[in-house]
């Protein structure tokens, strides 16, 4: 059952990823990106990381992608439909892709002994509590640094977008 679910979600994610790149219409691309994100969320759920599953949906699907779609709809689609979609350097691209794939394969092959396969287990205390404790106790400093970085970026965006504050 578990592996069936895993393969279902993986195939869904990869297929919608491919469809996303090859569609001419950007709104269709956005829809397939959403399906890919949802399929990834499904894999999180299958690994019993239900907090990550929910956060993935709320943040990426419910937040970021809504803004993406919002912006795409304001763009004039007719122009983009007639643009050349792909660069014509197929030869270089395929070599690069092959090298990258070989690199990943070698990394996995060399680490095959250290990467042990463990069945996913339910966290105790519960998932959400575990994430909270890790963030606010063990990794307090990195968490705060990240949040200050985000705050700075946000203030920067507001200042740039609005000249008269």
């Amino acid at each position, binding site marked *: 059952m578990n592996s069936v679910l895993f393969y279902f979600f993986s195939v869904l994610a990869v297929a919608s990823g491919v469809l996303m790149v090859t569609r001419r*219409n950007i*709104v*269709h691309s956005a*829809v397939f990106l*959403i399906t890919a994100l949802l399929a990834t969320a499904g894999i999180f759920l299958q690994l019993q990381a*239900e*907090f990550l*599953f*929910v*956060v993935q*949906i*709320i943040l990426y*699907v*419910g*937040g970021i992608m*809504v*803004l993406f*779609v*919002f912006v795409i*709809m*304001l763009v004039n689609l007719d122009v983009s439909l007639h643009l050349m979609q792909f660069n014509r350097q197929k030869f270089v691209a395929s070599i690069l892709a092959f090298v990258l794939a070989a690199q990943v394969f070698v990394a996995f092959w060399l680490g095959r002994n250290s990467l042990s396969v463990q069945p996913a287990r339910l966290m105790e205390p*519960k*998932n*959400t509590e575990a994430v909270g404790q890790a963030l606010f106790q063990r990794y307090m400093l990195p968490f705060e640094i990240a949040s200050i970085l985000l705050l700075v970026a946000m203030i920067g965006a507001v200042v740039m977008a609005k000249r008269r504050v």
Partner: protein
Amino acid sequence: MNHLIPPSIQPYVFSVLYGIVIVALLPLLAGYIVLVERKVMADMQARLGPMRVGPHGLLQPIADALKLLIKEDIVPEKADRFLFWWAPVLSVTMALLAYAAIPFGPVFQIADLNVGLLFILAISSMGIYGIVLGGWASNSHYSLLGALRSAAQLVSYETAAGLGLVSALMLAGSLSMKEIVQAQYDQGVWFAFVVPVGFFIYFVGSIAETNRAPFDLPEAESELVAGYMTEYSGFRWALYFLGEYANMVVVGSIATTLFLGGWLRPFARNHDLLWGTSIELLDIVPALLFLGVAAYSFWTARRQPVQIQKLVMVAVGALCVVLAAVMTAALFASPAVMQGIHGAFWFLAKVFGYIYVFLWVRFTFPRYRFDQLMRLGWHFLIPLALVNVIVVGVTIVLQQNWEWRHPMLAAVATTVIMLGVAAFLAQEEKQHQESMPAAER
């Protein structure tokens, strides 16, 4: 009954059963909420509302559904057919999916997820795609404008509503819907009384999220024809409508669970018994309510003008008597059955009360202009919600450390502080408007 079912499928049987019941009953429920809406509107405008189909229009929803089913399904010529077909389906699916984690009673719940609340929020935030994609796919300016307004509005108000929920979550200390209700029982008070400001913020946010007046700009009929639904007709249009009303029930359920004590009856910790029996005094209230409605139906049945209407009115009365009998019979059944039935009654009663306030607000307030809507969200609700979260957090810590036990004391303290903050924000807003040049106002 459990021994009849093979153990391998046992965990799924009741979930599937509940799922089927909800999916089957919800369209009917949505239809009747529409009828209630029309009736309440008529009452507030000193009219009668639907009266012709059935006594007092009681069969109107069924006639409407039939009409919508057999209407022609028109697709605009230059529409994006794929998205145009699927957008309404998406809207309804996401609204229905959210019911998976809603506890209608201690027993009647499809799945008790330990991230239940987040799950519901995530699913209902995906419902926006039904509106946005449908509006875009129609290839019409009105639809697109409605979709864009909807996206902007939802993103803004989701933040405020979510922060409003956080204040209740901090009191409950759990994301599981069941445990949130249990926490309200243990603390002996509904969270709406402890964090009234959080409840208010969620209430406003939930009106905006369901696109209802005074925040119904995505479908403002005086400006955008019908917003994102302009090009839809027949059954697809009905699906959008179903999605909207299903969403109203979802936000009502969230508010009921977090702020209004879920399936707990009022005064849940008062265990006074009926004289000489083992039945709790307050548990006979539902049966008495149904009997009252039944008596009223029988009384008005005589005054109906047509024979068939008299019969239907009597049937309604009989239904209420049966429900009263069920409520009474539940008192003598095992505690689990009794809690299940009465819990569902109280839960639905609270949800309908919440929806009634929605209708009330709709017919009371004029529609906001779009910039006013955005300013209300970003300049007023979100700062208020942020301060509210901080104040409630500090209060909880104070309670834990200083033995400051009485919950209502905390409620009073937070309310006073929040009123001060709200007044400050309103003042700030006023000055901001006055300092703006006339052209930008």
